């Protein structure tokens, strides 16, 4: 059968076919949530790299805030050094995530091939992997931000006294317009989740390139 304009081989227009194959975000979310929570061990590996990086970031944030509260503003070169360390930490974390997720793709080659046999498009696979990464990044970030800030608050408290810590601007913004504690917390969450999602792009694309015939393969 030849194509006539927009009519494809199945008597439906191309748009109709596109619309009839779908993976709603809610369903993708449900499937990804399932993967993250059931393969908890594997998820923890990815989440722990984010945990560590975000803990580091939040610890730095907290230290800067505490220092300001104690009247010891950090100078520019010191801040620059801390910023550089955090960036390095994030880059290392990213490599770790890419590694862990690529392994995950390799382990799941048969499932992904099967999903393609059931009618999944490449973009569905990408969607599922990115949502998984976002979830792991989010949980890792929350835990990391809490841990990082707590440790730094305790340490700061012992050094400069817990009373001084009361001066820390706890809200989203501090008096002089820079970020307050909650603001730093949110920034850390966003940074960690974004890191996770961006790192997942390469593995997700690799997963999407798997073929339906891989469902039949006996080895990778």
């Amino acid at each position, binding site marked *: *059968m030849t*194509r006539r304009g927009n009519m*494809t*081989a*199945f008597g439906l227009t*191309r748009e109709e*076919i*596109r*619309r*009839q*194959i*779908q*993976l*709603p975000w809610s*369903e993708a979310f449900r*499937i990804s949530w*399932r*993967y993250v929570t*059931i*393969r908890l061990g594997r998820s923890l590996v990815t989440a722990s790299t984010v945990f560590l990086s975000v803990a580091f970031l939040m610890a730095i944030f907290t230290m800067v805030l505490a220092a300001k509260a104690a009247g010891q503003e950090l100078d520019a070169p010191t801040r620059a050094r801390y910023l550089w360390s955090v960036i390095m930490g994030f880059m290392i974390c990213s490599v770790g995530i890419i590694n862990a997720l690529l392994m995950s793709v390799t382990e799941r080659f*048969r*499932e992904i*091939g*099967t*999903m*393609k*046999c*059931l*009618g*999944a*498009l*490449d973009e*569905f696979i990408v969607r599922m992997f990115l949502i998984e990464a976002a979830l792991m990044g989010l949980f890792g970030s929350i835990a990391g931000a809490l841990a990082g800030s707590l440790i730094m608050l305790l340490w700061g408290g012992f050094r400069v006294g817990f009373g001084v810590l009361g001066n820390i601007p706890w809200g989203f913004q501090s008096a002089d317009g820079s970020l307050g504690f909650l603001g730093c917390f949110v920034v850390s969450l966003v940074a960690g989740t974004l890191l996770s999602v961006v790192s997942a792009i390469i593995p997700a694309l690799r997963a999407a390139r798997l*073929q*339906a*015939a891989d*469902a*039949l393969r006996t080895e990778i």
Partner: protein
Amino acid sequence: MVALDPMMQPTGEMRERLEDAAQRLEPLMEQASEFIVRCREVRKVYQMGRVEVQALRGVNLDIKRGEYISIMGPSGSGKSTLFNMIGGLDKPTSGSVYINEVDLAQLDAYELAWLRCRTIGYIFQTFNLIPVMTALENVTLPMIFAGVPEDERRERGMELLKRVGLAERWNHKPAELSGGQQQRVAIARALANDPVIILADEPTGNLDLKTGREIIQLLKELNEEKGVTIISATHDLKMLDVSDRVIWIRDGRIAKIEDRAKIQLEAALAVEEELVEGAE
């Protein structure tokens, strides 16, 4: 197009033209509905480093709607390759595969996905259920891709599970099901969107004798009930009993196509021969 009033009988020239068109279309319509899969001079060559491996050397095949076909052959005969061609899992190097008169090579990614979602159901030797999902969720996964709303999904999913005899196990994950049960869930999943064809790759390969027989029985029942065409690539000789036709492949070519009636006749003749020899 002129909309015809059903009460108005076409007369004269109009009538002639309609009859003409009906005559021209009828054989095409019959042809379209008769053969669900057609292979024309299908060849597949694999490049393994420097060596060229000819997996299929010109296969011509016609499979009718509602048939139960078994593709049999030794390892390396091209059985799996042919299976992949028919199932749209791979493209031939030359030649064409038509499903419902549609040339698979002409389909883009969306159309291929649509085909796999709604026209073909797949069953694998390794069951291939998604391990993190329950039996019901596995069965309804193709329905999600087809855009079926949640209530309808659950209803149809449970119906299918009931048909394969696993209604009480809807909430169990594959790890909690035996091999035979997993394959039943896989069969239910293959039927999710009411496909025209079911492609089964060694469905009984990982099952014991008794369970394998049950699965074959189930497939035959479904073939008869729903009229779904079943194409199975298999080593299992138990399939011979239920297949309408058996296609023997050797060395990338079709060696023989046997009709079930003929197989039974030959088997009966062989037994008779033995008995006669024994008596002599």
